[in-house]
């Protein structure tokens, strides 16, 4: 009996310690300034991760402890994420970075259904994200419907777009399918840029911020005696959506639909022989991905309150694809990690000014060369 409670304490300690360590490394990475400091912290994190990656015994030990104490690990993680704005309240910019990372996590988890689960290289993320943002912005500017209705409209509009985009892709594969999505994304961008009712290149301004019971998200957040900048409101909003998306993504991954997508990815003909309606499931993956992108677009539009076609360019789709592939396909945790890393890295490289995108490109290529399966490869499905 005593033995067992001792084991329990060790397990809790391991979970607590490792989560705190990762969290502190994350905060340090966010707060560090100056070129030398950033490089130093980055090297430290990279070295730590490399060692962890090499020591499989430690890995197995830690992941077994996490598996045993799932609830505790999740509650602790939630608390740590919830208190993050408190540590960053003197610099709203850092909160802004965290919530932008959250928005990219939302886009990347959405894309993972296609790229990771079904192996459909969809390079039209910017289009569905943009359609969602424009739908909610137009609805709000013209009818004043409010944020909470607009997100469903945005999701619906984007899902409809996904349906339209999905139909031709049932007849194409591989690079051809990728080219269809590229062409489609460019068409949407050109239309947004040229149509008069989308505001053309000037975009749409004065999008009202979301509000709950008369409390606007643009007000400062008072928390007992602590005042948080208004970005904290959006941080919690995005955090809510990120949790929702990861939950949806986990549930779908473990559902029959997720299994079907994996079957299509492994071998389309075999899947068809097993009685799977391949086209229907492919279009479904488009609809779900685009719906989630559309909601994300609405959140973004109501955060920045001004959108223009420049926010929804082809490069954005490429960046999201990179996040999924670098993080690890069909692995929700890996995708989240990849999205956070690739959002924060270029921002941290702002100190290198001009060179930040260059370094970003070099890091992506060198990571792929050394680790072609992504940072967190897909785990085998376990049924026990």
């Amino acid at each position, binding site marked *: 009996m005593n033995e067992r409670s001792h084991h329990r304490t060790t397990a809790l300690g391991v979970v607590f310690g490792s989560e705190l360590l990762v969290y502190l490394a994350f905060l340090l990475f966010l707060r560090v300034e100056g070129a030398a400091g950033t490089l130093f912290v980055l090297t430290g994190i990279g070295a730590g991760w490399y060692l962890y990656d090499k020591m499989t015994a430690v890995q197995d030990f830690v992941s077994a402890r996490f598996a045993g104490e799932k609830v505790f690990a999740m509650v602790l993680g939630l608390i740590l994420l919830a208190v993050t704005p408190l540590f960053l309240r003197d610099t709203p910019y850092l909160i802004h970075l965290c919530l932008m990372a959250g928005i990219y996590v939302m886009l990347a988890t959405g894309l993972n259904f296609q790229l990771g689960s079904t192996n459909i290289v969809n390079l039209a993320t910017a289009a569905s994200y943009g359609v969602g943002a424009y739908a909610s912005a137009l609805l709000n500017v013209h009818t004043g419907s409010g944020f909470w209705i607009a997100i469903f409209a945005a999701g619906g509009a984007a899902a409809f777009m996904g349906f339209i985009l999905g139909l031709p892709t049932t007849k194409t594969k591989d690079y051809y399918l990728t080219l269809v999505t*590229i062409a489609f994304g460019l068409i949407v961008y050109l239309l947004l840029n040229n149509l008069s009712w989308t505001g053309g290149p000037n975009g749409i301004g004065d999008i009202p911020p979301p509000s709950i019971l008369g409390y606007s998200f643009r007000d400062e957040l008072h928390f007992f005696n602590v005042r948080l900048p208004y970005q904290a409101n959006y941080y919690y909003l995005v955090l809510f959506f990120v949790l929702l998306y990861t939950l949806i993504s986990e549930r779908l991954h473990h559902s029959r639909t997720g299994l079907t997508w994996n079957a299509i990815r492994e071998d389309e003909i075999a899947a068809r022989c097993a009685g799977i309606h391949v086209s229907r499931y492919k279009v479904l993956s488009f609809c779900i991905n685009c719906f989630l992108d559309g909601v994300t677009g609405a959140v973004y539009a109501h955060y920045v309150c001004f959108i223009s076609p420049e926010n929804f360019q082809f*490069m954005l789709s490429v960046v999201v694809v990179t996040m999924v*592939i670098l993080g690890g396909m069909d692995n929700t945790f890996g995708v989240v990690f990849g999205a956070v890393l690739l959002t924060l890295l270029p921002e941290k490289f702002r100190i290198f000014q001009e060179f930040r995108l260059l370094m970003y490109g070099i890091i*992506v290529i060198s990571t792929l*060369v050394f680790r072609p399966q992504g940072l967190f490869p897909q785990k085998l499905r376990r049924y026990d």
Partner: protein
Amino acid sequence: MELIQQTINALLLGCNYTLIAIGFSLFFGALNIVHFSHGDVCILGSFVVLILYKLGSSLGLFAAWPAWIVAPGVILTAAAVTGLMGALFEKLAIKPFRHAPELMVLVATVALGLIIREALRIFYPQGANPQIFPTLLPDGGFERGALFLRYDSLIILVATVVLIILVFLFVERTRVGSAIRAVSQDTEAAMMMGISVNGTIAVTFLLGSALGAVAGILNGAYISIIRYDMGLMGGIKGFSAAVVGGLGNIYGAILGGLMLGFVETFASALIPGGTAYKDVFSFLVVIFFLVFKPSGIVGEKVFEKV
């Protein structure tokens, strides 16, 4: 007359797309990959011309030679330099993924394109601004009634046709060319016949990148202004042309390039207010082709083996 004028414009645009598309087809034939930074390599070629021109003028090399020697010399040197760079890019960013999933090459080449664009923007003096391209081709033209023909457009047309014939002869008639075809048909069988696969792939990238550089240079010479990020759209158009024609097939690249050129030119000429939407039309055509004839105009239908 208007029709002839527009046809010439369409042919010019088509020539440009064709030269880029041939590169895509060559790379796809050799490695079954899509080189998403090819458009940026093309623009790199026109920047190499800018650098060569500045170097040459400051050293006073050009004063001694007449323009009709200097211009082709500069263009060919730039194409050769870009070709070598293209072969180097293959070694750095594509070769490491030869046995990895295809997606990795896609991301790696996209990242490579980003690196090329950023390097041009940062390291070329005032690279973020549009650059004025030197007048390589003669000014002026001749009039025949309402028709006005610029000399440079004639030169571009002739040069493209000559280049395409040369490439065709190279691929069909030379030893290296047959090695390229062998590798694209079956890499392993080619290896067993004693063909150096790596060497052949390097030659393929050299050739494709050099052709792309010529496309970038001729385009720069025609519109006389270039910018570091023009390669992104150029690359997508070239890839579209290659796919519409039939990926991996040189005739297909020519047909696809011409078709995109015609669609784009006539959409902006004939449809009122169509100029802003010309790319929309060409991409709609691309999607239409991909759905109803995914093998392209001249491509063979591929049956999937289980």
